[in-house]
């Protein structure tokens, strides 16, 4: 006996209600997570933005015999306490290197002390009343203001917040990542190619597979301990260097690359392999000419995501000593170095509140780099993606 439309509709009402409910619930989950993200990012921007600005003061700087001996004498007595000590210290050296300066007086913008900076940003008031008055007057004359903070992007860490920058850490991160990629991209891709395309399907390969999957779930700090024990203690790789950091992160990233490469290889339809074998390709030709080109976008995407993960990693690097205080960026892979997350960690533990904005600013830079990397992954995928 067939049912009428009315009967069917009556049953359907309940099902439609349920699917509507599920739709709202899933959408709610999406909105909730999007809200978390928006709150987090806007909070970081609000906190970090001041780090990109720095108070500067326009003043007359006199370069002469006296100021060469006593750098503080270079500027007027009443503005002196408002100016960063970091400005005075290199003065004698500058005059030595540039004799033409001697005997001149120049009006220039110089970097202000952290207390001035914080005062102008409205954060805290640790200035003496007299200094405050001078500053007030300077501000009115337009000779003291917040300007874009180039120092933050060009220098390394410093004990003086107004001189602290992210550049050394960024260079350290780049070098560490280069080491990581140079090690784990070829090894990871080749391991995956062996497991997917060459290895017989037996107990041994299954055990290896399970272990690789487990490795990806090992807490990252253990890789730090492993790096310490193997690279530093056993092989004598210099501590705190991008080399040891990169090798340690390679241990951690390797399983990610292997797993994502295998998934990319597995998604290549077997019909392509059969076609290639059918025209007389050797196994390696099948892989090189047909399987790898098709799976390349997936491999690159997985590797970049693994790289981004490694880039945000701190714990294992702290263990191999990459939290060093690095004022000057060096570009040697065996020299002492630090990375961005470790730098952020160092700033976060500073008692001076002026470092709080550096912390948030550093996070913003790190986020920007990560977003750039992810965008690169998406772009690469779209560029190389082919239909078949």
């Amino acid at each position: 006996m067939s049912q009428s439309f009315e009967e069917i509709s009556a049953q359907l009402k309940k099902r439609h209600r349920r699917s509507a409910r599920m739709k709202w619930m899933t959408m709610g989950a999406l909105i909730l997570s999007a809200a978390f993200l928006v709150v987090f990012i806007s909070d970081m921007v609000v906190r970090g933005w001041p780090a990109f600005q720095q108070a500067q003061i326009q003043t007359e700087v006199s370069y002469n015999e006296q100021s060469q001996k006593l750098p503080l004498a270079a500027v007027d007595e009443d503005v002196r306490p408002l100016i960063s000590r970091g400005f005075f210290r290199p003065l004698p050296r500058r005059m030595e290197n540039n004799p033409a300066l001697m005997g001149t007086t120049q009006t220039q913008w110089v970097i202000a002390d952290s207390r001035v900076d914080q005062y102008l940003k409205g954060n805290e008031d640790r200035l003496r009343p007299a200094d405050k008055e001078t500053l007030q007057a300077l501000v009115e004359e337009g000779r003291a203001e917040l300007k874009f903070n180039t120092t933050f992007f060009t220098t390394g860490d410093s004990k003086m917040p107004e001189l602290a920058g992210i550049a050394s850490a960024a260079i350290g991160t780049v070098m560490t990542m280069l080491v990581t990629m140079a090690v784990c991209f070829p090894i990871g891709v080749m391991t995956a190619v062996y497991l997917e395309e060459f290895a017989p399907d037996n107990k041994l390969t299954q055990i290896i597979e399970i272990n690789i999957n487990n490795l990806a779930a090992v807490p990252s700090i253990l890789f730090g301990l492993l790096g310490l024990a193997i690279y530093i203690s056993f092989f004598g790789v210099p501590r705190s260097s991008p080399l040891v950091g990169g090798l340690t992160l390679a241990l951690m990233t390797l399983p990610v690359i292997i797993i994502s490469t295998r998934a990319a290889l597995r998604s290549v339809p077997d019909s392509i392999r059969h076609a290639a074998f059918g025209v007389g390709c050797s196994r390696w030709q099948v892989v090189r000419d047909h399987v790898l080109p098709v799976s390349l976008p997936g491999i690159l995407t997985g590797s970049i995501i693994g790289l981004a993960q490694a880039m945000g990693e701190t714990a294992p690097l702290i263990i191999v000593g990459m939290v060093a205080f690095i004022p000057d960026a060096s570009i040697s892979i065996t020299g002492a170095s630090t990375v961005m997350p470790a730098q952020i960690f160092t700033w976060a533990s500073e008692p001076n509140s002026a470092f709080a904005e550096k912390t948030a600013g550093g996070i913003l830079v790190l986020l920007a780099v990560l977003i750039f990397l992810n965008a690169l992954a998406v772009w690469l995928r779209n560029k190389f993606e082919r239909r078949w």
Partner: protein
Amino acid sequence: MNDTTLQNFQTQQDSPTASESAVRTSYNEAPTPNKGQPVTRNESVEENLSVRVRDLSLWYGEHQALDDISIDIFANTVTALIGPSGCGKSTFLRCLNRMNDLISSVSIKGLVEMDGHDVNARGMDEVALRRRVGMVFQKPNPFPKSIYENVAYAPRMHDMVSRKADQDELVERALRDAGLWNEVKDKLHEPGTSLSGGQQQRLCIARAIAVRPDVILMDEPTSALDPISTATIEDLMDKLKKDFTIVTVTHNMQQAARVADYTAFFHLGEMIEYNATKQMFANPHTKKAEDYITGRYG
């Protein structure tokens, strides 16, 4: 009825019934396929042996998929393999170019001989074999590359061409032979996958003939195609047999009758009958082949 009795009941249903076993025995009593020779030969033309198969058995793990197959395949003929689904036609076809090597559970016994060489012998390189025995698959599977590359790839890989001009010429000839040239000559550098299904299958045929193999294996090459594309490919087979030996699998009796010089009927992993197509269709020697050909099977 409790669970156990239900299970027993089902087990009984699943196992072959008495009458089925009886039917099976009756095939075994049928005349054996004449030591691999067709019962009747086409006498009009001189035909040379191309592939000789003797007592070939194949197992997927424990499951025997081919049972003592013997068959002679003649050069420059079209041989059709027919039989119900799952009887081992594709498996047999894959034995001829050792594509079964790719399946790890397979074990093979018996002889497949080409040009007096045992293809399963230790010294035989399967890459060399596949260079001489090309294959066209059931589902068109062009490489995810341009039309031109699809055809040019294999000859270049086998060092058959060195100059670009030679390569262009070879591509054109293969595409002409496959009856595709006129349709694609203006878009050689577009992806092979942008073609229609029938065109893709002809592209796969062009790819297979580009390396000038001796034998071309076709596993249901027209099963995914419309009648017009099918007719094109059937015509093609007829033309191609001038240069190549073709072994094809088909579920379509009319197709076998139209294109094949010889037809082999497979059933449950055995070859029941092998004969010149005309004889096979006019006067099958076995009851089973007759039932299958006339559509009474199943």
